[in-house]
């Protein structure tokens, strides 16, 4: 974790060709102070009752998100909706194993989401590698790269387990503990170092929201 008092120099987006560098943000994310008292409680209630998930299937577990939309499981009754763009969504469901190639997209999508943003990691692979524990191209712990609010175990978890996970996330948000965005900003250097350790060809902006 970064504990240095001196702020490091801004990352220069050096993975990008020079003509594109000016197009992207070059300021590190900052922490946002929550509102005070009952106002924040009200906001948190609204956030928890209106979970828009990013419709981005990052692994085989994404197949379990589809049944949630059907009449049998019907996630809409819990205020859960899929959204196609990271700008509008507030929950990122990591669908199982994340290869390094996918991790690049996960990081970019996560950073493009507007805070407060929440992450549900689904399946054993996101927790400790699962059945891909010895794979050369699959990360073992997603929480080294982006902050995770709650995990759903199983390989695969059933849609019921997913709904239970969403209820758990609601409790976390209502308790005011869903501060992944601030955690990411606070430990930004640590997360970036971890990401760059596994993503060998970093050809994307360093700050891309």
């Amino acid at each position, binding site marked *: 974790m970064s504990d240095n008092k001196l702020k490091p120099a801004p990352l220069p987006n050096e993975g990008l060709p020079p003509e594109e560098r000016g197009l992207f943000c070059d300021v590190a994310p900052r922490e946002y102070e929550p509102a005070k008292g009952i106002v924040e409680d009200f906001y948190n209630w609204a956030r928890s009752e209106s979970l828009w998930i990013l419709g981005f299937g990052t692994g085989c577990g994404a197949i379990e998100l589809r049944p949630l939309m059907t009449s049998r499981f019907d996630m809409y009754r819990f205020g859960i909706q899929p959204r196609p763009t990271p700008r509008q969504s507030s929950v990122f469901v990591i669908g199982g194993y994340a290869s*390094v*190639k996918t991790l*690049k997209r996960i990081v970019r999508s996560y950073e493009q989401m507007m805070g407060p943003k929440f992450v549900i990691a689904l399946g054993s692979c996101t927790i400790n590698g699962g059945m891909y524990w*010895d794979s*050369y191209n699959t990360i073992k712990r997603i929480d080294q790269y982006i902050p995770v609010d709650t995990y759903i175990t199983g390989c695969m978890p059933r849609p019921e387990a997913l709904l239970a996970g969403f209820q758990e996330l609601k409790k976390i948000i209502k308790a005011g503990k869903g501060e992944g965005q601030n955690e990411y900003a606070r430990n930004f250097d640590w997360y970036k170092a971890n990401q760059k*350790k596994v*993503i*060998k060809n970093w050809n994307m902006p360093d700050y891309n929201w």
Partner: protein
Amino acid sequence: MNELAEKLAVRYGARDWHDQRKDLASVMVDILKIRDTLAWLRDEGGYVHLSFATAIDNIERGVFTLTYALRNHERGHSLMVHAEVSRDNPSVDSIHLLWGQGWTYQREMKEWYGIDFPGSPRVDEEFVLEGWDQMPMMRRDFDSLAYSDATYTERPGRVTHDPAAHMKEKLYPEAAK
């Protein structure tokens, strides 16, 4: 089918014809003749469809075995054409002019096994991996577990059970003792 086996043997020195099933056979040819064999099979033998092409790392013999799966739709027969190439500095004739999709398989083999196909389009580009800087990872002397341990952080507390012993202990605790 033996007629075909004989023709291939006479023309290209094909050997080890093996009928796996009624509709599937395999044959081995010399690596220098692989392109001619495939071209003849496509134009004269009726095997017009390249289902896939892949490689197998036979590290014990020091060779990569390339496999081209062809299909004759008229006869409903598939033929696996094998050819062996040495593991050091492997280089094989490209078949992208015979089948348009061939360059994709060759790009895949170049990235995964390091088998070169001179003249194949985009053969040196990345295929599925991005920024891979190790030896080709499908070679069997690449230690996946060691690489994974060195690169990716492990969550402590992971244990592995022998499935038979574990289930025996769980289901029949008295028998396990």
